[in-house]
């Protein structure tokens, strides 16, 4: 089981409130991602759940039990840290067995579980090495191994992939998703990378300055962002925002339209501009289009092999059914 409920949880460091009172419930078996720009309080929130920080006011429940004042060791959660935080003086085997040793499991059972975890994570050949003799990806696996052996109520991941290079990150992302499919255990994952959030989550919690901006599935956030911040944060490349006359036509203060919902054409379309920098990714091409009276270029996704160049005239047609409208306060209008 791993049902976690946050009830009016608030955190302040001295006079600075980093997390205003918030409510959140995480269902058993869910993969929840906390995402937001750096300093938004996502790591603090995770550490509150872990018990590494004390909540200032409010209550945290795990499987119905009030754990607010419980030390981390008693909460039955496992955590994977950004720096891996392996014990450098212990072999991989001892690192993975450490939580079991703390739980005073008998030696045979410890060995059995360590072997099983090592098997799942392809670490069998490295069990007798020290963490210092492993590569970044292997260390990450050891950290995950240490987390899974004790069969926790939930896993907490604190930006676990940010120390890995891009190729390895994609691989580990898949491994963690697969692990979740296999274990069906609740996972809470903190990242600043919206791609990680979109690809892994069942449920995304978007945070800004300690406030929950929106909670929803990746596609919900993509299709119906609740406000300008979420609209700009979710999706890559970023959504384009237009104000003024163009927005007025739709009865909004600001409208947003994603690069993939604009049709570029060399001949016709309601919006007109010149092609700036273009990024060719092979499958897609992104044009940065400069329009009169706008300082920021508009990003447009085109098919991979469209033939337009710097300085060419271009016409754009936004998909009217997929225009997001926002009022003066930045909230979504439906």
């Amino acid at each position, binding site marked *: 089981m791993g049902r976690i409920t946050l009830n009016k949880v608030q955190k302040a460091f001295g006079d600075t409130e980093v997390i205003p009172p918030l409510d959140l419930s995480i269902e058993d078996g869910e993969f929840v991602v906390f995402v937001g720009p750096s300093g938004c309080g996502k790591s603090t929130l995770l550490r509150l759940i872990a018990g590494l920080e004390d909540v200032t006011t409010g209550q945290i429940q795990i499987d119905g039990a009030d754990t607010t004042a419980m030390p981390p*060791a008693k909460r039955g959660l496992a955590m994977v840290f950004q720096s891996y935080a392996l014990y450098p003086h212990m072999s991989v085997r001892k690192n993975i067995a450490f939580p079991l040793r703390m739980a005073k499991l008998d030696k045979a059972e410890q060995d059995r579980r360590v072997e099983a975890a090592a098997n799942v994570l392809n670490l069998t050949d490295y069990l007798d090495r020290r963490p210092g003799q492993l590569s970044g990806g292997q260390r990450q696996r050891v950290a995950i191994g240490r987390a899974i052996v004790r069969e926790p109520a939930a896993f907490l991941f604190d930006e676990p992939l940010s120390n890995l290079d891009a190729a390895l990150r994609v691989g580990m992302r898949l491994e963690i998703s697969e692990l979740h499919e296999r274990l069906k255990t609740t996972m809470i994952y903190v990242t600043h990378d919206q791609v990680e959030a979109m690809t892994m989550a069942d449920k995304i919690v978007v945070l800004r300055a300690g406030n929950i901006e929106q909670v929803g599935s990746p596609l919900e956030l993509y299709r119906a962002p609740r406000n300008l911040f979420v609209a700009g944060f979710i999706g890559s490349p970023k959504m384009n925002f237009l104000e003024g006359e163009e927005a007025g036509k739709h009865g909004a203060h600001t409208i947003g339209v994603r690069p993939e919902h604009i049709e570029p054409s060399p001949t016709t379309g309601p919006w007109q501009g010149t092609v700036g920098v273009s990024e060719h990714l092979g499958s897609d091409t992104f044009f940065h289009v400069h329009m009169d009276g706008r300082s920021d270029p508009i990003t447009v996704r085109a098919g991979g092999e469209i033939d337009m160049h710097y300085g060419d005239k271009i016409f754009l047609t936004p998909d009217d059914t997929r225009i997001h409208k926002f009022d003066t306060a930045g909230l979504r209008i439906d």
Partner: protein
Amino acid sequence: MAREVTRQQKSVNTVIGWGLGLLMFFPIIWIAVLAFKSEGDAIRAPFEVLFSSWTFESFGAVQERSDYFKHFTNSVIISLGSTLVGLVIAIPAAWSMAFVPAKHTKNVLMWMLSTKMLPPVGVLIPIYLIFRDTGLLDTQIGLVIVLTLINLPIIIWMLYTYFREIPGEILEAARMDGAGLREEVLFVLVPMAIPGMASTVLLNIILAWNEAFWTLNLTAANAAPLTAFIASYSSPEGLFYAKLSAASIMAIAPILIMGWFSQKQLVRGLTFGAVK
């Protein structure tokens, strides 16, 4: 050309280095020389001393007149004892200051160090009286207590510096893994801090071994360590250079040998944090 200049500089540096080294080591060499001379030869002019005959008689005389092993045992008990008690107090203190610092942690550290700025003689009389009234005078326990307190600030400072080098996330990981405070300190913090703790222990043993002010003033016969053993060959009975030197060599030999073998640890300890 350039090469010759550096070679010249190198040889100058070498000469200066050796010169300074010898200058600093000279008193010990001279003590070692005098220790192997007869009492009569030892008071001759330095040049004559060197070429007079060598003998072990001073060592024999010293061993006959006073009990070296008793003093040695006392020294071992006092220096190891005060170091162990010091560690037991300093590890939790340094842990809390390094990992859960409060607003005034820095001030507390400074305050602890400031106790080392007080001349010990300033508190000699109160401590002497306390020791007299509690029956601690001339006891090993009394000296262990006093030397623990004297060196505690240094132990805490050193451990604090070492502990600060250990990433807090690793201790947090231990907490998440189900370790209580005791397990966290014993299984994670201490093993990771072993190199630093080793140099702290070594330095403290040396300091306690050579501590003379308190050991001389608070002991008479029973608990007297090697410092008192050396001192007994000083003034009261006149100047017995050869015996005094022999006693000194016997007193410093154990710590010198220990220091020699643990040199690497010690240097790391003393220069720790100098770079970075």
